[in-house]
């Protein structure tokens, strides 16, 4: 650091270069005023004075560096601090500045002590309490004195009065049952894996601080006891499905608050929320199977509904077609009947092999190999109609 080119060194050749390097050494108030009143040490190492070989080292006390720039050694530092340091040569504003003697020639020591005590009193007796907070004042950390409301409060200084400030508006969460499985017995002796969140805040800071040995442990235990009591009033289905949840939550809150009030714990329960209510892992498959069965039953119903619609639509279609034809048939029964008959026969017989046996005496010869060949192909029906009686 010391060897680098100093930014201060490159300044204009004006006169005040020596003053800037001196500031941090005596940071107190009295030293500051000395800087204005003092004449400053002789600026032997100023740039432009011709003697220094390079930029001035800002870390080096100005009174000490006569030669070319170098890093300060320990001797330099002590020399500038001791009573026989540069003060002997410079004015009261130089490094290693000492307080000017008090009027009357006494020591500054009692004044400094008084100032420190004064600051101490001032700092430790004013307390800013934020709007969400509440404070508690005790005598010597023992006897309770009073509470502090939000705003600026004054007490006797520490250690006469001691102050504890706590956030009382903050709603704190307490989660129970998040890690692992927490099985709780329901009213119908089933088990449910439950996790829940209790939101609480400090109602009375004094009671909260002085009444319970371990408020948070108490809160957790009271919560657990209340939750089990409330779940035991409900059936498993009500807990898992959620219909009984609001009852449980309200019941737990009420129970917890009653117990905590009986303890005078100073805790207010803001709310209880069940985060998870599942069947135990070991039987969760069976529970899933139930909902799967529900779905399956619905699917079966849907399929049969589709079938029903098909059947009905078909019946309606058939009936409508028949009605149409029948209306025509009514107009000319014989002709319509014949027409239908011939049309049907035409299209039926037009596509099939036909053999007409003329004479009644001829024994019909069936070309069996041919029939067999066809049978192998696609098992087509061979229909023989006997001579009709009319």
């Amino acid at each position, binding site marked *: 650091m010391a060897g680098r080119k100093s930014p201060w060194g490159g300044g204009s050749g004006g006169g005040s270069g020596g003053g800037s390097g001196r500031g941090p050494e005596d940071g107190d108030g009295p030293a500051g005023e000395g800087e204005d009143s003092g004449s400053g040490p002789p600026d032997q190492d100023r740039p432009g004075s011709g003697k220094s070989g390079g930029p001035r080292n800002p870390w080096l006390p100005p009174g000490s560096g006569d030669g070319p720039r170098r890093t300060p050694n320990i001797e330099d530092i002590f020399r500038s601090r001791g009573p026989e340091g540069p003060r002997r040569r410079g004015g009261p504003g130089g490094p290693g500045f000492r307080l000017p003697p008090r009027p009357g020639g006494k020591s500054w020591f009692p004044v400094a002590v008084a100032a420190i005590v004064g600051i101490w009193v001032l700092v430790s007796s004013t307390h800013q309490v934020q709007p969400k907070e509440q404070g508690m004042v005790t005598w010597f950390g023992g006897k*309770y004195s009073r509470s502090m409301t939000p705003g600026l409060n004054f007490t006797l200084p520490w250690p006469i009065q001691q102050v504890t400030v706590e956030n009382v508006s903050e709603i704190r969460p307490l989660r129970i049952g998040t890690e692992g499985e927490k099985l709780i017995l329901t009213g119908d002796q089933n088990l449910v894996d439950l996790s829940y969140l209790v939101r609480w805040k400090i109602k009375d800071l004094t009671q909260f601080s002085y009444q319970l040995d371990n408020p948070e442990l108490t809160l957790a235990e009271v919560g657990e006891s209340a939750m089990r009591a409330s779940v035991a009033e409900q059936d498993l289905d009500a807990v898992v499905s959620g219909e009984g949840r609001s009852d449980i939550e309200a019941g737990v809150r009420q129970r917890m608050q009653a117990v905590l009030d009986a303890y005078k714990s100073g805790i207010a329960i803001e709310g209880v929320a069940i985060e998870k209510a599942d069947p135990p892992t070991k039987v969760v498959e069976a529970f899933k199977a139930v909902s799967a069965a529900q779905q399956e039953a619905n699917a079966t119903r849907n399929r049969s509904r589709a079938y029903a619609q098909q059947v009905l639509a078909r019946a309606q279609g058939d*009936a409508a077609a028949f009605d149409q034809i029948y209306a025509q048939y009514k107009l000319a029964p014989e002709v319509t009947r014949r027409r239908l008959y011939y049309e049907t026969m035409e299209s039926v017989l037009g596509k099939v092999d036909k053999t007409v046996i003329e004479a009644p005496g001829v024994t019909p010869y069936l070309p069996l190999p041919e029939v067999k060949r066809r049978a192998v192909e696609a098992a087509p029906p061979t229909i023989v109609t006997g001579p009709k009686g009319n």
Partner: protein
Amino acid sequence: MSFWQTHKPSLIALGLLAAALLSTVIIVPETKQAVIIRTGEPVSVVNQFSPRKPFGSTGAGIWWRLPIIDRVQYVDRRILNLDMQPQQVLSNDQQRLQVDAYARFRIIDPVLMVESAVSEDNLRAQLAPILSSVLRQELGRRPFAALLTAERGTAMANIRAALDRQARQYGAQVIDVRIKRADLPDGSPLETAFTRMQTDRQAESETIKARGEKDAQIIRAEAEAEAARIYAEAYGKDPEFYDFYRAMQSYRSTFLGGEGQSSIILSPDNEYLRQFRGRR
């Protein structure tokens, strides 16, 4: 340096005074009761618990003692926690239950506590076995189902009273006893409970499926009945024509719709070939 030299005697006096103060003055916090023991005998109690005194007007705060001779033992003034190891309890119908309970107590007679139990931890160690034995006794008189329900009120009151009676001998007052959890013990009771739950669900899912099937059957049957009604209504107008019409439809679908080819051997007597012979 000069300060030290000029004020040497007064500084030494100040130091001595501070040492004397420190060994004489005690500060009793609101959360503690202080028992002052003079040569082994408890002589007085500072800030003893009293339910009626609000905080700030209790005996907490600055107190004094004789240096060296007096020893001060602080005893907690707050409600203390007594936890119990989970216990297996046998109900009167021979079912097992894993019970975890807690008690809350307060030391109301610190002198008695110091004499009989010495410290809070020791007192807890004395009370814990009493709590579990009282708990087992009281719950063992009840049926299993009664233990599971929240209506354990009288049982808990009895347990509290019994524990309180014992705790008074140690200068403590039992404020509350509560069952944190009452569970089926691990192993076969828990397993059988799981099995019961499982079979319960299986029965439910089978019932649901069967109900679905039943509904489906009913829906189909109703549709078929309705279709039959529609058919009957339409075709019932002329059964004879229906026979003919349906036969025509049937021929078409039989001979034309089917795969492959059919062979038909016709007799000239066939109705279709009536005109073959040119008869009129």
